[in-house]
């Protein structure tokens, strides 16, 4: 077989593989069928089940359960609290579930609880917790560098690629948020020479809270007249900043972009206070976690590219240098045009 024929054959195989994987539904997957037959119990623990983000995740998990018959469910956690979340995970361990999927509030306290889970032989899948040690796998909708750069592209477009900006994260201890912010800043340095990071306050905290984000933004705008934009990361950051922009009458003078839920922010986008928000769909992330849990429970070998049977997660690759963190391509832009098309 000559080289050319080989490459044609390879690309045909790959294209066929892609075509199959892109349309695969979780219900057709072998491991998922097995999980349903065996009655494995898979619990999803969100950060804060009152947050619309995780309400959306619950719909994904519930849908997965009803479509495939797998015994999976999302637990209610009440408000965000690291200690309460760790206790809830310990309760699940005592209860003897087969797999725990978790979106950790705090890496450190969760890691010690997850160690107990691993010791008890429970499969642990994390999401947005790349630095957790005691997990089987952690899945990220995308590489943090990719998403951080993606937010920065949106912010830069709104700011006209010039001016002073700063970054906002839920907390300085949050794993993913800080990596996005770092990546956004790195991308700006490389691609937008006319933009500069606010040196005095390069990173501020919103505590995953819209009011905190709003107050922080107002303080920043007052204290630093040069400031022209804020890169948000948590789903409360950009919307909170937008409220400040709106209230201070700074539309088209001060800009923000970052993660945000469509339905909650439809008015902000349509009125032009925010040009665009970025997102991945937490419902699909929830489904992907459960799907991966099924695969691990069924004893399937996890080799890149991993296909988790849901959109944006069909070609998961290892994060560089990691054997536990899988990254997909699940990002999307929301703007005034498409905001109503998501249905959440």
């Amino acid at each position, binding site marked *: 077989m000559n080289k050319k024929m080989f490459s044609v054959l390879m690309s045909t195989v790959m294209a066929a593989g892609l075509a199959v994987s892109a349309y695969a539904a979780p219900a057709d997957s072998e491991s998922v069928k097995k999980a349903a037959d065996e009655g494995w119990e898979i619990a999803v623990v969100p950060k804060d*089940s009152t947050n619309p983000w995780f309400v959306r995740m619950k719909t994904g998990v519930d849908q997965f359960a009803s479509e495939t018959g797998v015994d999976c469910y999302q*637990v209610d*956690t009440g408000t965000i*609290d690291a200690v309460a979340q760790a206790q809830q995970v310990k309760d699940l*361990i005592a209860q*003897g579930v087969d797999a725990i999927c978790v979106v950790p509030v*705090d890496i*450190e306290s969760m890691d010690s609880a997850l160690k107990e889970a691993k010791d008890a032989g429970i499969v642990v899948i994390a999401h947005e917790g790349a630095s957790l040690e005691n997990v089987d796998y952690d899945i990220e909708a995308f590489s943090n560098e990719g998403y951080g750069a993606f937010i920065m592209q949106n912010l830069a477009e709104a700011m006209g690629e010039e001016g002073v900006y700063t970054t906002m994260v839920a*907390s300085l*201890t949050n794993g993913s948020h800080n990596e996005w912010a770092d990546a956004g800043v790195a991308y700006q340095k490389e691609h937008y020479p006319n933009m500069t990071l606010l040196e005095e306050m390069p990173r501020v905290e919103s505590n995953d809270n819209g009011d905190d984000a709003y107050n922080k933004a107002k303080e920043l705008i007052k204290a630093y007249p040069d400031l022209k934009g804020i890169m948000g990361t948590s789903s409360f950051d950009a919307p909170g900043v937008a409220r400040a922009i709106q209230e201070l009458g700074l539309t088209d003078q001060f800009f923000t972009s970052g993660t945000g839920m469509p339905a909650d922010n439809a008015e902000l986008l349509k009125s032009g206070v925010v040009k665009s928000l970025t997102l991945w769909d937490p419902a699909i992330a929830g489904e992907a976690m459960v799907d991966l849990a099924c695969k691990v429970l069924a004893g399937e070998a996890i080799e890149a590219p991993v296909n988790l049977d849901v959109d944006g997660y069909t070609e998961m690759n290892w994060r560089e240098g990691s054997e536990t963190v899988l990254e997909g391509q699940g990002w999307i832009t929301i703007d005034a045009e498409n905001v109503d098309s998501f249905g959440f």
Partner: protein
Amino acid sequence: MNLKKIYSKNREMYRLLGIMVLWLIFMAFTQSKKFYTGANFLTMAGQFPEYGLMVIGGMLCMMTGGIDLSVVGSANMASILCALTAIRLYGAEGSMGAGGYILFFVIAVIVGLVVGTANGLLVARVKVPPILATLGINELLTGLSVVMTGGAAISKFPKEFCDAFSKNIGGLLPMRVLVFLIAAVVIWFMLERTTYGTKLRLFGTNAHVAEFSGMNTTALILKTYITSGICASIGGLMMLSSYASARADYGSDYTMKAILIMVLGGVSPNGGKGKMSGVITALVLLKLIESGIRRFRSVSDYYVTLIWGAVLLLALVLDYLSTRPKKAKA
């Protein structure tokens, strides 16, 4: 007749025991496989000492008619100081011996002493209402903790202490429960077998009378708040061992939980009344209900808060109905 006497001697406790039995029967019928397992009971037992310690110390303050809202602040301050000290002495990757454990407890006692003295002096000497004094101290402690840690969790410190206190003795009794029991026995002894307990109840019933009867009320209040501070700080050590990390905002909802348990356990918020047995029963009951409810998937954790509120109000109403003076018979 005899039974009635026993009941009326410790009404709060028997009432709670009754509720507990009903709940356990209910769980046996609905979730027996998932609830009645050794692992589940060990998990529940391992979880309550951290706030249990805050409860049994804070109960003394409530018996004086005061309150200690600085328990969570003291706990986090103690655990952060311990973690930082361990890093300083043994290095972040180092290991520590039994001397380190003793050091941790010494640090906790010192934190408790300092916080308790500050609370006690504010209440007894400066005459600041206990709610405001202890709330202020709590904010101060939390603020200091945030400054010391930069708001982040400390997790890289020698973990021997955490491992040792996460163990179960003989596979049956969690170390943390042992610590809790020792503290509970000490406080029970203070309350029931020393003059301190009598004075505390007298002062709580009527502070003026206590003062005019020549009691050193400042010393009494100081002693009370210091005991509460030490208990809370040891609670902080238990949190440190449980989560293998320390952070300024761990356990922020424990204050409300602790107060709920005290009142449920028959400690009168007006002072003067309270028993160790009632409080411990309330502590166990609440943990059984909380973990039990989590076994029901369809019941959200939000209902736990709702049920706490309902249980508390029910306990208060029952207390009122059973203690109000009977109408004189015609």
